[in-house]
């Protein structure tokens, strides 16, 4: 039996074959026979070209020739077309031996198929995500446009109502009795309130429309906001401390509005007979900056933590605390524009801390 010295390789999991200088199979083990979908007996003595017509034109054969003639070893993944039309992938290592070239082959078809499946699935997922993103972007801008148009166009008839109320008040004062005059005042106040609500809605829909990032000194920005709120701060006796602050790239007008709202809220919702104390701090956490605005005010019940950020939601009547129920909804939208989150920690009667994060741009 020729080449019996290789019989130890007959049944190993890796394919082993030896090709002679005239391209005949001189040794193949069971695995090669399986890979090649041909019996050992059929292979031995045949040439590669007989077994696989056209093999001379393949890249694999080029390396095989180099190995045979120049002794250049090579390692490669070979894509292999079977007679039955199926495809196989084999990791090949070739090296020159006395008899010709020794080829070790390992079936990686399964891995390769899995890889391709993963690639296809990823591509499909990417495509789906892109499609969804486009759909969402369109929906989002539609919604913004809707809010803009709604609030803009609703102002007009409302103004007409309030204009005619004014005409009645001015021109028909003598004809109106006391209760009619009172009703007109009520109509006037209601239209004014609705007009303010529409204006707030419009501002909400406009947030982030002009997107230009600016490098902002947060300390300076907060001190500017405090200057704007000077009267409120003075009248309430509030003490505001500002810790270390970063410089960040942000949408400046929006961030200004955010601090203005949080600081004025901290003062507005203060405990009676207690001097408001507000601490503003910042801290870098991983790739984000976290800011806290801490007060010693009336606090918020945990069950309302989410509600306060919803548009037109209010916890207090207009008599207790004035407001239009949009301030914190604006804050949430501004923080989200900056890739962050906003949340509350609070204890009733002791104070609230509004914390928010901002991604670094």
């Amino acid at each position, binding site marked *: 039996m020729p080449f019996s010295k290789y019989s130890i390789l007959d049944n190993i999991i890796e394919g082993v074959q030896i090709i002679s200088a005239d391209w005949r199979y001189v040794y193949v083990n069971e695995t090669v026979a399986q890979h090649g979908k041909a019996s050992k007996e059929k292979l031995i003595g045949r040439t590669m070209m007989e077994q696989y017509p056209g093999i001379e034109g393949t890249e694999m054969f080029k390396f095989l020739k180099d190995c045979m003639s120049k002794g250049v070893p090579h390692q490669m993944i070979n894509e292999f077309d079977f007679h039955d039309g199926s495809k196989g992938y084999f990791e090949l290592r070739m090296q020159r031996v006395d008899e010709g070239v020794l080829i070790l082959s390992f079936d990686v078809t399964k891995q390769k198929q899995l890889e391709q499946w993963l690639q296809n699935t990823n591509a499909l997922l990417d495509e789906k995500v892109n499609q969804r993103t486009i759909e969402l972007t369109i929906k989002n801008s539609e919604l913004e446009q809707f809010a803009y148009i709604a609030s*803009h166009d609703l*102002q*007009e008839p409302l103004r*007409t109502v309030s*204009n*005619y109320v*004014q*005409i009645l008040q001015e021109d028909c004062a003598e004809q109106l009795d006391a209760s009619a005059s009172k009703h007109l005042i009520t109509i006037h106040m209601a239209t004014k309130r609705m007009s303010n609500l529409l204006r707030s809605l419009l501002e909400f829909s406009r947030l982030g429309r*002009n997107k230009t990032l600016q490098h902002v000194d947060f300390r300076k920005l907060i001190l500017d906001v405090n200057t704007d709120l000077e009267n409120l701060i003075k009248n309430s006796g509030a003490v505001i401390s500002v810790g270390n602050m970063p410089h960040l790239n942000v949408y400046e007008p929006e961030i200004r509005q955010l601090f203005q709202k949080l600081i004025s809220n901290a003062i507005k919702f203060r405990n009676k007979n207690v001097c408001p104390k507000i601490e503003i701090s910042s801290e870098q956490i991983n790739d984000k900056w976290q800011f806290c605005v801490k007060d010693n005010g009336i606090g918020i019940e945990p069950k309302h933590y989410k509600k306060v950020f919803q548009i037109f939601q209010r916890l207090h009547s207009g008599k207790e605390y004035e407001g239009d129920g949009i301030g914190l909804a604006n804050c949430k939208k501004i923080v989200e524009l900056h890739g962050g989150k906003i949340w509350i920690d609070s204890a009733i009667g002791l104070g609230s801390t509004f914390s928010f994060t901002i991604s670094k741009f």
Partner: protein
Amino acid sequence: MLIDDNKDDNFFHERVIKKSGYANMVVPKENGMDALEYLRNRHNNGNAHPDLIFLDINMPGMNGWEFLEEYNNLDKEFQCPVIVVMLTTSDSPEDKAKAALFNIVSGLKSKPLTIEMLDQILEEYF
């Protein structure tokens, strides 16, 4: 001159101006085409050529901005000293930017026109 498709707004604004006593005459027009035609006919209007135009933006057909483009092409003698653009909503950055493109726009105001606004306009431009 008032240019506004909203009759109620024209009515109210005309009333405010008349009550103020600042104007001898108020010419309300409900669209830009009528207004342009009136301005071009200056010689047939006697002394009624406007000193001040209040212009609405949101109008069907020819809107306020389109009116301004046409107005720009008018012979100087047909134009007016002051144009104030009347906005439905206050503080619109888009409208402000657009108005800035027209040198002929003197100012922007939010509806409704009030006597205080008239005082201010008179002080500023006349």
